[in-house]
């Protein structure tokens, strides 16, 4: 298949220039909306990571404390 457009396709490409000349434009407020959502999602994910890390550290600490206080059941 040739990459070169035939006469009808060339005419179509010329017609499509009409759409290229007047593209749909976004609302400038869109950036604000996107960044507003991105900022709170970033904050929430940061909070979740911090909470997870804290919970992990507490579990480690608890494990250590219980391990240290548990009497040895099988003395040699």
């Amino acid at each position, binding site marked *: 298949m040739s990459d070169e457009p035939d*006469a009808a396709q060339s005419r179509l490409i010329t017609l499509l220039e009409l759409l290229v000349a007047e593209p749909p434009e976004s609302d400038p407020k869109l950036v604000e909306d996107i960044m507003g959502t991105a900022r709170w999602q970033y904050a929430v994910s940061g909070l979740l990571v911090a909470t997870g890390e804290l919970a992990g550290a507490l579990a480690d600490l608890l494990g250590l404390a219980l391990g240290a206080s548990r009497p040895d059941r099988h003395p040699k």
Partner: protein
Amino acid sequence: MNDSALVARALGGELDAFALLVEHHRESVFRLAARLVGPDEASDVTQDAFLRAFHKLSTFRGESSFRAWLMRIAHNAALNALAHRRPVPVGEPPEPDPAESRGTATSSAPAAHLEASERRERLTLKLGALPPAHRSVLVLRDLEGLSYEEIAQITDAPLGTVKGRLHRARQELIELLRNNTYDWELPR
């Protein structure tokens, strides 16, 4: 500052760097979305695409341009929106009435402007009638001017498939326009 540097800064937690990326690429993502899903859903798809990109930023390896990477995400978000859309009743929406448009023209310049506007409306309608996979290739090539290689990356299709789809998309659109009452002066 180039896109790669902005990505690195955004990954370091600088949200203002990501805001600059959004600002740089807002129009091209919105145009693609509007041409694939229509103007009513384009803002939602654009927002969805940028937020997906934000959360996947660490997966950007720089193997393609940031623009191509982002357009791929936007393309997928648009196809996803189309897939979840309720089926519409068969039949095309009414086309603009040329007599009505011309009735308001008082000189040749406004008449030409109205005619161009009417043609744009009709073309947009016909473009919307193409299957999504064909429409996206035609939009990316003939409206956005991207290379075949970039389109292959964005649509995740081999180069030969991209060329084949583009050829078929153009032929389908030509047939749709030929079956129209309006004379598009398309040679046989």
